[in-house]
């Protein structure tokens, strides 16, 4: 499979499946994952966060390359999985049962 992320983030290619477009889809992937999977992605992405932030800071959102967009989506997914890993210790918000709050529109990336 061709690389989807900027070349300097090739070590994150095994986690390219987390470069998901849209908050709703990212949240669904979180709920469909085990804590081990979330932790593994979190650890790998968090380890490169300083470099990723430096990369993203260089571009306006509309000027991002396709690879740059995917890096942004991947780190948006890190935001989505940070709650289970850092706070909840489970994929779902505690006591949230069947309730859902869904993104209906968000700024284009």
């Amino acid at each position, binding site marked *: 499979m061709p690389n989807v992320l900027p070349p300097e983030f090739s070590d994150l290619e095994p986690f390219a499946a987390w470069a998901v477009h849209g908050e709703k889809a990212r949240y669904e992937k979180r709920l469909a994952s085990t804590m081990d999977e979330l932790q593994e992605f979190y650890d790998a992405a968090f380890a490169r966060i300083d470099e990723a932030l430096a990369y993203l800071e260089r571009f306006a959102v509309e000027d991002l390359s396709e690879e740059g967009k995917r890096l942004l989506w991947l780190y948006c997914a890190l935001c989505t999985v940070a*709650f289970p890993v850092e706070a909840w210790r489970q994929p779902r918000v505690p006591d949230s049962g069947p309730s859902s709050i869904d993104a209906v529109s968000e700024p284009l990336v």
Partner: protein
Amino acid sequence: MAHFEKPAEGSWTEHYPELGTGPVSYDDSITPEFYESEREAIFRKTWLNVGRVEQLPKVGSYFTKEIDAAGASIVVVRSAKDEIRSFYNICRHRGNKLVWNDYPDREVSGFCRQFTCKYHAWRYALDGECVFVQQESEFFDFDKKDWGLAPIRTEVWEGFIFVNFDPDTETSLHDYMGSIGKGIEGYPFHKLTQVHRYRAEIGANWKLFIDAFAEFYHAPILHGGQYEPEERAKMGDVGYEAIQYAFDGPHASISSWGVIAPPKDPSMVKPIERKLRSGLFGPWDAPDLGMKELPPGVNPTRHRNWGIMSYVFFPNFMILIWKPNWVLTYHYWPTSHNTHVFEGTCYFAPPKNARERLAQELAVVSFKEYGLQDGNTLEATQKTLESNTPVKTFPLNDQEVVLRHLHHHARQYVAHHRAAGGQA
């Protein structure tokens, strides 16, 4: 011990004697009968926020809104005269829904030069005038000028579009918003054009969900898990006190402290927040919105630890203004006595780069995590309130004064409506 000064009466609640201090009943939130009265007395009589002017960027831009509580579907449009107009979303010919796509019950938005009914191609100009009738000569004593769309009163406050289904209302939107609204005027809402919209179907009465967002007494407990353990313990000890509560008519405001953006000590917050310099309170590095000074109703006491204003505009609209220059709005659209549609919308300044976009993302998903906790808790509350229990009244403390105020005014509206002979 009080950290912030209360009114001379000794409490916020006693400062407003009409609210009382006794236990309250939630029988205004658990029966179809009371809800039917609310639909007539409140949702067809007061000003309801349906969106913002930025949603209608040019002449011909429109969106529809399904307002079950008022029993109406409406279409809101920017007319050829560059005015914001609203109409009942119904074709004058045979009552077809005029503006919709694929699924009649879903809201839509878009751009058009005229509205054309899918059924017989009657056409309406953006100001509602009927401009084309198929085989017009087949009708009897007919002048299409008499068959324009039915208008709804529509006014704009600070870029927020409101409608009022009462054609006889004597209160302008500006007057309706009162001193609470007046105090925010001039805030640069129009600069916050980076918008994230969320929607949820909640199995609880609309007022109970407002209650959840109108007090922070619950925050250290229900949401405690989001904080680092040491910080959580500290918050549990201190609890919550508002800096100030203010009321005018049915509207309310809460001024709250919030030293978390940025935090005094980075170890207070989670690792991702430290890295992205963002969290529930928003990105820590506030964008410059060109404000010389906050409007007088934002941080009214000019407290140095101020962090967030919450405004409850009766009946179902909340604005939250956060210190780092972003805004969150909540809408609660009832669909029955024990269900409603919740809308949460985050408004940011456009990010200067992709890193700022990421910081905004963390604020948005943090809002969602909290909202999910609140939402499910309330579905449980609704069920227990409706259950067969001897527990009928509930004590509300002084930090829950906005709840007391909201339910008081909902009851007042319904009582006046019934006293005036209202059927429902």
